[in-house]
């Protein structure tokens, strides 16, 4: 159990986190979702004892990250966003190094990393700098796990990773969760949010919402439709002009639109678009997902 109470952190003039409080349950995959600069990395650095909070308190499984930082370091495994292992040491040497630093050996905790490490074991004598991106990531994960941490902290592990490797990575996280590890993962990709048990939506150093992905989607207050037309630019432009539209943004191959009141007539909208000269119009009712929720919450925040 990780409890965060009234945490604030400021870098010179930038407020990175403003008075946030929440808790993370044991053995869950907890996602921090938010755009760049939202404060995700700052929170992770505070949790992993690398930064001191300006005020507030974080307790990781009962240990204070400031006064008990040594104990916290022993139960936390951290994988930074940037690959930061020794490029001039081999795969095996890197793993050995981190094992020794934690006073353990590869053999002792092999079962935990076996699944992941087996995939890079054929290259164990290759220097880490010469590995491919996906393999580097697996090595970094192995190194973060080598001391059998209770909490695993992953800072944007899937940024810049191809779709297949991303799915593979989330599979690995699911398996680690089954072994009883609490996993905190940040990501700028909204579609990965549904893979977490609970997510926190972060924006400008504040938490907009914390809930399970299902509940977040369920609580989406508005009627959402997806519109398609031949000329997308013109379509967005015209939709924004429409008297009843509330938010309009491109979403994948279509445009997601919400309305100021929820009983808007779709036919009326269609006629409006036709009168503006749009062709090949296609309107469907859309299932909101995390990204829609995020956009809506951001908008609400701005209006306040």
């Amino acid at each position: 159990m990780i409890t965060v109470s009234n945490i604030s952190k400021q870098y010179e003039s930038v407020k990175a986190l403003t008075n946030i409080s929440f808790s993370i349950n044991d053995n869950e995959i907890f996602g921090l979702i938010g755009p760049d600069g939202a404060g995700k990395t700052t929170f992770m650095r505070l949790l992993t004892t690398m930064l001191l909070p300006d005020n507030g308190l974080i307790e990781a499984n009962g240990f204070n990250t400031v006064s008990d930082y040594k104990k916290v370091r022993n139960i936390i495994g951290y994988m930074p966003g940037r690959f930061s292992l020794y490029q001039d040491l081999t795969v095996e040497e890197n793993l050995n190094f981190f094992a020794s630093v934690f006073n353990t050996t590869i053999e002792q905790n092999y079962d935990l990393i076996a699944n992941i490490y087996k995939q890079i074991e054929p290259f164990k004598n290759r220097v880490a700098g010469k590995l491919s991106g996906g393999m580097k990531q697996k090595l970094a994960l192995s190194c973060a796990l080598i001391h059998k941490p209770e909490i695993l902290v992953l800072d944007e592990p899937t940024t810049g990773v191809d779709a297949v490797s991303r799915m593979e990575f989330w599979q690995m996280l699911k398996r680690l969760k089954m072994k009883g590890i609490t996993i905190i993962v940040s990501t700028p990709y909204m579609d990965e949010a549904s893979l977490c048990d609970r997510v926190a939506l972060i924006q400008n150093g504040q938490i907009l919402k914390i809930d399970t992905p299902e509940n977040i989607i369920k609580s989406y207050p508005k009627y959402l439709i997806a519109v398609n037309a031949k000329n997308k630019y013109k379509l967005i432009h015209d939709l924004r002009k429409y008297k009843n539209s509330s938010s309009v943004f491109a979403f994948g191959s279509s445009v997601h639109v919400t309305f100021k009141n929820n009983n808007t007539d779709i036919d009326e909208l269609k006629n409006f678009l036709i009168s503006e000269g749009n062709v090949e119009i296609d309107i469907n009712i859309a299932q909101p997902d995390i990204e829609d929720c995020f956009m809506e919450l951001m908008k609400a925040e701005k209006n306040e």
Partner: protein
Amino acid sequence: MKTLIFLIRKEFRQIKRNKVLLPIIFIMPILQLLILVHATTFQIRNVNIGVVDNDKSTTSLNLINTLGASEFFSITAFPAHISEAESMLAKSQIDMIMVIPQNFGSNLVREKQADIQFIPNAINVNFATLAYSYATMVLRSFNIRIITETTPTIMPVQHKVVNIIPRYYFNSEMNYKWYMFPGIMVILITMIGLFLSGLNLVREKEIGTSEQLNVTPIKKHHFILAKLIPFLIIGLLELTLATVLGILVYNVPFEGNFLVLVGFTFIYLFVVLGIGLLISTMANTQQQMMFVAFFVVIIFILLSGIFTPAESMPNWVQKLNVINPIAYFMKVIRMVMLKGSGINNLIHELISMTIYAIIVLSLATFRYRKTS
């Protein structure tokens, strides 16, 4: 302890694997000592002289030959006129002009006195002074010969001359290389200590591994020690290598006890390694580290009295040398090698360096803690 040994082994493994660093660590000292000792010598040889001989007598020819026979001078030109000689001096074709006036030979015989003029190129003041004093030395021996040749033997003159026979202590052959050699050694050991340790730490910062290490229970003093010890060992290896090279190549006399030198170098290395680490805690990139370290080293080296004795610098400059570790080492290494000084002559330097090492290393460790 186990962790420390493991950390040190990791450092050595990385040094061993570094394809640029490793050769440099061993080639640099050899090249520096073989080349720079010659390059920094103040002994003057091959001063090119242009002679304006307005006399053209046997005596003047005799003088020219005497000068040319000296190992310091070579007569390379005979400009017809002083203005031609001056333009050659301006073009650096010659280093010094000797003007022999008309009737030089006959004046010498008749009036027992004649003047000649030396015009050295004084861009390099030191060079000009030395060239001039060498020339007067040669001239004096010429004088004595002339006197004995031209004085009638029937009337033997008792030359009541006090002859000074100098004996140069600690470097009896006035071999400048013996003086410069320890100086170059100091530069070498300083470079190894100050640059390599600091750069190594900054590199961990740059590639992000220090961040990764910060979340491990690794102890800060273990981490710092693991950065010091490999370069301490390399520094002492270089010292040994350089000493052997000096004795074999330059016949540098090693008057003192090698162990005294090793002991002092040991403490000195802690100081420079500490300075390197201290700079690295303030730098974020290897570029910053390199630039600041270079700035510090250049100042320290030139202040240390490597070329000119520190004692002849202005008083306030000498005071600056109190905080200049290179000055201490420069002094000690010359004292031990050339003078054979033992520990009792070096107490002051030993204590100063020990205090220095403690201060710098504490500062570096403190700063490292604070920034992480």
